[in-house]
């Protein structure tokens, strides 16, 4: 009897999850374009595309939070991914759609090399090293000849056609009437994919192991968890997301400079995670939406924009120090 109700509840939650997912997809793919078409605010496309891409980067940061590390270096990987994509497109003539995973893989490989020594650090020490990493990435981009220094790489062509076996999956962006909308669709699709992957990771054995790392690293090592491997894996996945987000950004702005992603952006990624709530997979997405979109909406206040933005950030922190989604905790009677 008891097990029966449990399976019933599980089934109920599965249906609820599928319904919630469908509602979310309908919202982002149908309702938002309709709303924008109705109001004529096509600039929202650009803002929301940015939100989707930043949310991908924030998802990576969230994953490093999940193993108990504060990662203030996502901007470095976004910059790296952007440059990899830009250089491959402009100098090797590779299709953008191929550079997207390549940028991610490049970042993941680099992050393994960097992560091996620095992932031994904890707490603020790790946080500060990653903060420095962002600065290193910017200065390296300035110094290397292939990145063209401070002038950056500009006039990168729009993404071309993506076809499999002669069937066009994504048309050439330069032939489209409304490339903004197309970018929005691609970015959101990418975001949904990333969060599905993230959700899957968290709810498998890997996720449980990561949680054990977050709680007590020595203890989980002592019962036979390969903590080094886990840390590297989580960090590599995180950097992969960062690289993909950066590469996508470059294709939208059609340019990249060493200052495209700076320390401020790295810090912002962390703030998105905090604001949404570290206990929930969808926290970073919500945090990104609120902070980035909120900042955009507050621009009507002109010179008071930053004052109101930061004031409400502080107020929010005072009311909900564990992030917005911690509201859900109370309903379930705490965690």
């Amino acid at each position, binding site marked *: 009897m008891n097990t029966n109700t449990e399976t019933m509840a599980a089934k109920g939650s599965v249906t609820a999850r599928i319904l919630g997912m469908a509602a979310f997809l309908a919202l982002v793919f149908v309702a938002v374009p309709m709303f924008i078409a109705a109001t004529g605010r096509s600039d929202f496309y650009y803002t929301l595309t940015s939100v989707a891409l930043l949310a991908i980067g924030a998802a990576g940061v969230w994953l490093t939070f999940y193993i108990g590390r504060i990662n203030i270096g996502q901007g470095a990987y976004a910059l790296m991914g952007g440059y990899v994509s830009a250089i491959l497109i402009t100098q090797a003539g590779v299709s953008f759609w191929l550079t997207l995973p390549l940028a991610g893989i490049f970042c993941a490989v680099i992050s393994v090399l960097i992560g091996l020594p*620095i992932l031994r650090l904890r707490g603020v*020490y790790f946080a*500060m090293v990653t903060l420095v990493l962002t600065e290193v990435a910017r200065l390296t981009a300035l110094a290397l000849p292939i990145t063209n220094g401070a002038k950056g790489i500009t006039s990168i062509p729009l993404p071309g056609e993506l076809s499999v076996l002669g069937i066009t999956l994504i048309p050439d962006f330069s032939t489209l009437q409304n490339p903004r909308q197309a970018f929005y669709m691609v970015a959101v699709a990418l975001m949904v994919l990333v969060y599905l992957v993230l959700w899957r990771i968290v709810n498998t054995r890997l996720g449980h192991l990561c949680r054990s790392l977050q709680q007590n690293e020595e203890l989980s090592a002592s019962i036979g968890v390969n903590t080094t491997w886990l840390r590297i894996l989580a960090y590599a996945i995180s950097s992969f997301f960062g690289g993909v987000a950066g590469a996508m950004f470059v294709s939208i702005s059609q340019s990249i400079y060493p200052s495209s992603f700076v*320390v401020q952006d790295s810090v912002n990624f962390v*703030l998105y995670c*905090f604001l949404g709530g570290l206990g929930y997979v969808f926290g970073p997405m919500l945090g990104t939406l609120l902070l980035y979109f909120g900042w955009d909406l507050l621009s009507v206040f002109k010179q008071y924009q930053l004052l109101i933005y930061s004031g409400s*950030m502080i107020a929010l*922190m005072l009311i909900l*120090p564990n992030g917005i989604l911690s509201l859900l905790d109370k309903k379930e009677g705490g965690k």
Partner: protein
Amino acid sequence: MEQILANGLYLGAQYALIALGLTLIFSLMNVLNFAHGQMYVFSGFVCYTVVVQLGLPFIVGLVVAAVVLAVMGGLIEKFLFRPVIRRSKRDESTMLLAAGIAFFLDALILLLFGEKQRGIPKVVNGVFNWDFRLIMPYDRILICVLAIAIIVSFILFMQYSKAGRAMRALAQDRMAAQLMGVDVDRYSMIGFAMGAMLAGLVGALLVSITGVNLGMGGPTSIKAFLMIMIGGAGVISGAIIGGFILGMMESVGLSVLSSYGDVTYLLIFASLMIFLAIRPQGLMGKPWG
């Protein structure tokens, strides 16, 4: 060579002063104060207002800036950090709060003082010239001496006064300090106020030489983070050593590698990352502090 060393010493003294405030706050509250650079800029503007717009002597500006920042630090601790630390599940949540305060101070500076670069007239005129081997304006020497004097008095205060001892106990072990009868809340607040005051002093000192502008806050914070990473987070001697090391490295690097532009900083950052991979707690720090 003498010139490079003197420049390094001069840079190091001011850097050490910035790092001291940051490390004090970190050791007491486990808070990474992202707003430290903004506090420094704010105090520079306060000093500018007092000296240039009200026409008062520099020493008044220095004192006023220090007092304003100390009060601001105390209030920030009491009304913002304390409630958030009490209620949040993870220590790191204070980072969002600190970043929010940094943005808020930026906005405040923009509204109150505008975005222009501001400086005050030289405190003393003249240039010290030792046979053209070492050239240093007198006001820089004065600021350097003042900075070192402040550092020394800060160390003496922490070493011998009752409040200093209480704060050191707090930094070592919060719980044990509380059990020994240290008023934890009170000394946290005093510590935060002192950390902010040090940022205030350095801002007021430097406004007389380099001036201040709105954009200086963030980069200053990052440099201060670097220094306490080199020396070890939360250790006073570490902050001072880190400050002087960074000052020397910058001074030497900028003169030796001047033709390569920003390579100096790239080298500093890269060597710091290697150094930290080998010795994560910095020169003087305690592991996993």
